[in-house]
């Protein structure tokens, strides 16, 4: 099968490319950009005039909700949502039911993802059994079963001792650990950024120090154990400063930020709309600007959707009683483009953080259209305006403050290993 | 149409005295309904030789159309002594639908059970929507569809007809 994508604007930060070129694909892989290889006769020609041709997006923060939470989403529904958003590589969270702490669950997820055939799915394994923070999981077995990294997510570790042992063990086998730094005793019971808005609206606060106190501890342990570390969903200005310092001191740590923390601040909470209830919380404008700065200067190399679909009822409650999370994966790219339109990020930096940046931080071979790579890509109409509604959404989740909004920019087609999946 | 309010008030005062004599009403409480009724009642009080001072009633809280019209927040004070066993002469400037009088009677009953209630009206527009009739009427006038009657007071007390579209 030979495919030619003609005349599109190929933007691929991994090879510093932004030009109108033809893309040639043969047997799942990119074989040439620009001039056709000798003797190449396309079975199918796609005219991409006026469209952007981008490497398939790599999303490090996705809850597929399967197994266990079929009312919220399934591997089929959420990878379909991913494909419709141009996301071809998904790292999914271990907090399913049962939890991803056995090779069987990891295998089940990958089998179902393969059957759905919408996106490449890499599960995260639980760092401790049952995410309980007490006993170590079978980390090597999980990794052998396809887990790309290990994480306890926001579930607290029983003690710093267990955490430090878990890191030592992971370091022994050169495994990547993903941290969601959070000091439970400071964040427990909170539902909004501790600041003027939470104070004046009487919402229990989560101070930024809940993140930074834990991050300081985690960085010290990473330095001591030498474990490979990625810090997920950073939300506060001080965290960026700490990651910057760590990297300056020679530590090879990476980090990502959820897109909503770059777009929104706690100001949106004044109407108690539970759609804005996320963890870590939307913080101050000062924090938001610092997060953007961290991306602009290259300290942070990944932006994710932090896709957490919920059934309708999960958000129909007073603010603090709603379940946290948004389900934005299918509009990840157009929403992220708001940052470019608003002059807050340049296009190349943004696309880096959605493609090769996250792929590299997890050591996944994706996010690039260099010759020889798998042909995962999407065709994006950057100017098309459309309504995203309950009627045309692909995710099973009902929870996004952007549902009902006019969205600028639409993924027109997504290809996985050269095969059109959307 | 020319309205001589002073002459009408005089005529009304005389008729009211007569009425009280006929009905053997002694020391009645004269109750004016805010605002025009209070002005009219003040004028009538001198002629009535009652020991009671003027009482006033604001019927805002008793209107049957409050939820459609909204409330005027500065409700004037209702100054009504106990009405238990007393004769009441209720005074208003204009009798139109009769709804104001019904509301006023409801309110009066919340202050006690009066011996009797009589109604004195300066201008009866003959448009009653309820079985309510004045015992003493200054003048009965018929307005055309777009005419409204308006009282200005308290001193001087004047009346005019205005066109309302």
């Amino acid at each position, binding site marked *: 099968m030979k495919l030619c994508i003609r005349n599109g604007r190929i933007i691929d930060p991994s090879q510093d490319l932004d030009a109108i070129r033809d893309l040639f694909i043969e047997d799942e892989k990119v074989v040439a950009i620009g001039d056709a290889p000798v003797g190449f006769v396309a079975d199918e020609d796609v005219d991409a005039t006026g469209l952007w041709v981008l490497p398939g997006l790599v999303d490090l923060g996705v809850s597929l909700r399967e197994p266990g939470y079929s009312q919220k989403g399934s591997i089929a529904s959420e990878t379909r949502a991913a494909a419709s958003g141009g996301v071809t590589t998904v790292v999914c969270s271990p907090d399913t039911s049962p939890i991803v702490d056995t090779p069987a669950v990891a295998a089940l997820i990958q089998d179902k993802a393969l059957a759905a055939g919408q996106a490449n799915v890499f599960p995260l394994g639980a760092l401790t059994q049952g995410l309980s923070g007490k006993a170590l999981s079978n980390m090597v077995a999980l990794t052998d079963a396809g887990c790309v990294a290990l994480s306890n997510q926001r579930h607290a570790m029983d003690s710093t001792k267990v955490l430090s042992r878990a890191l030592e063990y992971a370091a022994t086998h050169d495994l990547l650990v993903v941290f969601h730094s959070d000091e439970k005793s400071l964040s427990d019971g909170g539902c909004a950024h*501790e*600041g*003027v808005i939470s*104070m*004046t*609206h*009487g*919402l*229990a606060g989560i101070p930024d120090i809940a993140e930074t106190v834990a991050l300081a501890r985690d960085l010290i342990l990473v330095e001591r154990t030498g474990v490979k570390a990625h810090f997920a969903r950073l939300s506060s200005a001080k965290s960026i400063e700490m990651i910057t310092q760590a990297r300056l001191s020679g530590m090879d740590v990476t980090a990502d930020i959820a897109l909503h923390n770059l*777009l*929104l*601040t706690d*100001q*949106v*909470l*004044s*109407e*108690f709309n*539970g759609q804005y209830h996320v963890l870590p919380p939307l913080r101050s*404008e000062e924090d*938001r600007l610092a997060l953007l700065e961290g991306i602009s200067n290259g300290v942070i190399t990944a932006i994710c959707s932090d896709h957490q679909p919920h059934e309708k*009822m*999960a958000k*129909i*409650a*007073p*603010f*603090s*009683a*709603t379940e946290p999370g948004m389900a934005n994966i299918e509009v990840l790219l157009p929403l992220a483009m708001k940052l470019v339109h*608003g002059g807050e990020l340049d296009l190349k930096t943004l696309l880096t953080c959605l493609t090769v940046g996250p792929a590299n931080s997890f050591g996944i071979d994706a996010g690039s259209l260099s010759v020889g790579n798998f042909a995962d890509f999407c065709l994006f109409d950057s100017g098309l305006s459309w309504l995203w509604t309950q009627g045309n959404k692909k995710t099973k989740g009902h929870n996004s403050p952007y549902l009902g909004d006019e969205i600028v920019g639409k993924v027109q087609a997504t290809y996985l290993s050269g095969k059109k999946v959307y | 149409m020319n309205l001589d309010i002073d002459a009408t008030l005089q005529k009304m005062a005389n008729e009211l005295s007569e009425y009280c004599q006929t009905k053997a009403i002694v020391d009645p409480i004269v109750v004016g309904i805010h605002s025009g009724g209070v002005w009219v009642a003040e004028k009538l009080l001198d002629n009535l030789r009652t020991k009671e001072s003027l009482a006033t009633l604001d019927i*805002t*809280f*008793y209107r049957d159309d*409050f*939820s*459609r019209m*909204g*409330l005027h*927040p*500065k*409700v004037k*004070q*209702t100054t*009504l002594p*106990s009405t*238990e066993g007393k004769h009441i002469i209720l005074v208003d400037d204009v009798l139109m639908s009769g709804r104001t009088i019904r509301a006023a009677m*409801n*309110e009066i*009953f*919340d*202050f*006690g059970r009066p011996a009797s209630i009589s109604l004195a009206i300066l201008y009866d527009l003959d448009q009653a929507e309820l079985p309510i009739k004045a015992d003493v009427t200054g003048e009965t006038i018929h307005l055309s569809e777009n005419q409204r009657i308006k009282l200005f007071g308290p001193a001087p007390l004047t009346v005019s007809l205005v066109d309302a579209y």
Partner: protein
Amino acid sequence: MTQSEPRALQLNEKGQLKHFLSLEGLDKTILTEILDLAESFLNMGEQSVKKVPLLRGKTVVNLFFENSTRTRTTFELAAKRLSADVINLNIETSATSKGESLLDTLQNLEAMQSDMFVVRHGDSGAAHFIAEHCTPNVAIINAGDGRHAHPTQAMLDMLTIRRHKGGFEGLKVAIVGDILHSRVARSQIHALTTLGVEEIRLVGPKTLVPNYFSETGAVICHELQAGLQDVDVIVMLRLQKERMHGALLPSESEFYRLYGLTMESMSWAKPDVVVMHPGPINRGVEISSEVADGEHSVILNQVTNGIAVRMAVMSMAMSGQVQSQESERSMASDTMVGEKV
């Protein structure tokens, strides 16, 4: 980046109250209207039947997810004095299925064709949630939601201040105690600011008066003397005993020693200062008995004013609700005429 929308949920298209959820977004005209109307209801005191027929035929449901006999009783009395039929419901919420049980309860009550819900709930924003998710024909009155707002309590305090001080201009008001957990204080800050007092001081230790509150324009004082100096009004807040468990305070006795209102600390304020307290009072914790029962205390007047304010708010919201329903109906009939043409 995104600006919040104006707080339009509680007003109808004419700008009249149709719910009463929070004092945020209500201007001086509406607050003054509430106070004027409440004052009119206070004047009804000498009637032998203390009742007006404004809400006759309407059904008011007191929906209390948090138990509070005092507040519920004053709302019940206010509704009954407006001639409404009143149903009291105390609903214990289980922590696990809060959201669902709340929505279920509401849907059941809607079927009873109620006209007004008076809501007390432990979650901040609960009254907003109910106003948004309920049938549009029910007026929602917030009787306290979490730490967020207690607007009728704040308005009765405003009425008490106005009746004793004649107005708000030039006044210095100190609010003392547990601001952090107080929905009353949050509503008072909005009301006092909108009504135009000269200065609001928030007095207490940093654990109970976080610096974030300075963004409201209030002055934060950590010492009682600085906080009470030359004030016209002192509001003492109730100190909940469970605060000691959260490591926010060492003990009641230490709090009393530093922030308790005594005859001595009263002397720092203006000679004609009035002392308020939303009740119930912890004598010897926030306030000495001498002060609570003394000549400056207006705590009992607050209770009387509370009924009048609640009558005012309930009748205004019901009126605004009915009017917005009627304008919707007339709009609907306009549309039908339009279709015929």
